[in-house]
């Protein structure tokens, strides 16, 4: 197992490297000059040249790339053009909010999807199945930026239970987590239903039932564990989707997460900040993939990694 982990880690490094390189190129190709954006229109040309020199923007791209890479092992990701704060600091300040929202929405999604998916599989073809399917599709079809304000209208304005926006671990977390988690819950429900149905077809299940095991136990105790393996994989893979969905949710609820930071950085052509954010996101995506693989191995002992 340890050898497998090491191998995986070694293979992920070039991936992260690749992502960061591609992004570096892309952002430098975007039209829009960060110096102009920073200094505005009343700046003198000499001033712009100075700033360009200071930010190393006058050096060839390769050289800028090299100094960016060199800074990574030192933990120096550069200084944000906009706020003049170190990039690592800007990102670190927002990590708790991002983690909190992501963890809570995934939890919400799992708590909703598990029972619904199992129910749909057990009562396949009946009303409950179609209802849960309809609910799943309804939540898939409603974009975040509509669901959010609708939830706010109900729970904040009409009922006065929750705040409209803002950051906090208590009440402010509820609506953003539900908004973000609903889309995931829909996908998960369908997936759980599908994989569970696959498992239930297998021989060991029919054998267990033939031996007298009640249907419900067969489902929950045996089939579910195996069915969860591909689901967990998908969960891990959809981490990227969580990040994408979270940008919209973060903007709507004024949640200070990394997704929103990334968008603002791109708008401002804040190269170091964009690169730093992408590096962090790529690293965490890769880490999440690794974690899901390990989780899968624990769930299904038949999966052995060499």
């Amino acid at each position, binding site marked *: 197992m340890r050898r497998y982990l090491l191998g995986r880690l070694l*293979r*992920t490094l*070039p*991936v*992260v490297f*690749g*992502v960061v390189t*591609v*992004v570096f190129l*892309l*952002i430098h*190709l*975007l*039209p*829009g000059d960060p110096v102009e954006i920073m200094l505005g229109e009343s700046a003198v040309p000499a001033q712009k040249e100075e700033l360009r020199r200071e930010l190393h923007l006058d050096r060839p791209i390769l050289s800028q790339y090299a100094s960016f890479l060199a800074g990574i092992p030192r933990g120096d990701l550069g200084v944000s053009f906009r706020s003049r704060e170190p990039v690592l600091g800007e990102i670190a300040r927002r990590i708790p909010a991002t983690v909190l929202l992501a963890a809570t929405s995934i939890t919400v999604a799992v708590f909703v999807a598990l029972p619904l998916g199992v129910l749909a599989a*057990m009562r*396949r073809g009946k009303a409950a199945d*179609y209802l849960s*399917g*309809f609910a799943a*599709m*309804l939540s*898939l*079809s*409603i*974009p*975040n*930026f*509509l669901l959010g*304000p*609708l939830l706010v*209208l109900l729970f904040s304005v009409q009922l006065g239970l929750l705040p409209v926006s803002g950051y906090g671990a208590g009440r402010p977390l509820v609506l953003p987590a539900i908004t973000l988690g609903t889309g995931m819950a829909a996908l998960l429900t*369908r997936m759980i239903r*599908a994989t569970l149905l696959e498992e*239930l*077809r297998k021989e060991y299940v*029919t054998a267990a*039932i033939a031996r007298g095991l*009640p*249907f419900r136990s*067969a489902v929950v105790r045996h089939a579910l564990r195996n069915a969860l393996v591909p689901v967990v994989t998908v969960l891990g*893979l959809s981490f*990227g*989707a969580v*990040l*994408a969905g979270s*940008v*919209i949710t973060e903007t709507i609820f004024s949640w200070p997460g990394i*997704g929103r930071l*990334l*968008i603002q950085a*791109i708008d401002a052509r804040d190269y170091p900040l*964009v690169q730093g954010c*992408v590096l962090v*996101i*790529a690293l965490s*995506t*890769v880490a999440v993939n690794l974690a899901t693989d390990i989780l899968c191995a624990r769930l299904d002992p038949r999966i052995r990694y060499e």
Partner: protein
Amino acid sequence: MNEESGLLGLIRRTSRHRGAAVGMVLLALFLLAAVFAPVIAPGNPLAQTLDEGLSGPSSSHWLGQDKFGRDVLSRVIHGARLSLAVGLGTVGISLLIGLAAGSLAGFLGGAVDRIFTGACDVLLAFPGILLAIGIAAVRGPSFGNVLFALSVLGWVGYARVIRAQVFSVKAREFVESARAVGGSPARLLLRHILPNAISPILVEATFGIARAIVAEAGLSFLGLGVAPPAASWGSMIGEGRHFLFIAPHLVTAPGAAILLTVMAFNFLGDGLRDALDPKAHAKLSGR
């Protein structure tokens, strides 16, 4: 050939699944609406009557009017064109790229395959939002750019499926003998690999179309969507959401269209999956 195989047989088997049958009917309706939009739509989707902006449903405008006084019903019908085009176009492009890349990687193996896997990993670790914004910034919102943004990351799934199929088929014995007899890779691809891969790909494609249509609505929130005055369900939601609390019909009409389309494709996908499954499904309820 027994009566249950072939395209007709497929359709027949799929329609046994109740949801899929409904889905197919809905989709047929949408396709009709898309193709014959100018004939079916009661009014001109672009005609503005500014002073009647944000009017609710009335006898001359069954679904009301948007901010510029344009007829919402006509826009929804015309929107079917663009939205279905986005869905089908995205999946089409992703499929083509995916099939090509996956088969190449599978057939050639070795270094090519390693590059392929590496590229897939990089793309999957990519924050997709970045790409969408980048494209929006560079090229501005347009139908072509929407297709580009959605399909550039979407081909990976299909490529992986094909590649897996290629590997599994390559390993089988009869391939060795077919090759010995002189079969070319292209023939191999068409006669053996594709038919087996078609099942998961078809299912994945139907869900992909639904996803692409919903994604277009999300892109419109970011400002990347079709340019005004074109009507697509996504851009209608994007424009209409600012009036959510005073004119909800601007959002519910295209939203319902998207919901129905998503449902149709999803149920169709379910039905296809069941129909294409080589094992017959057993009755499972033990009660």
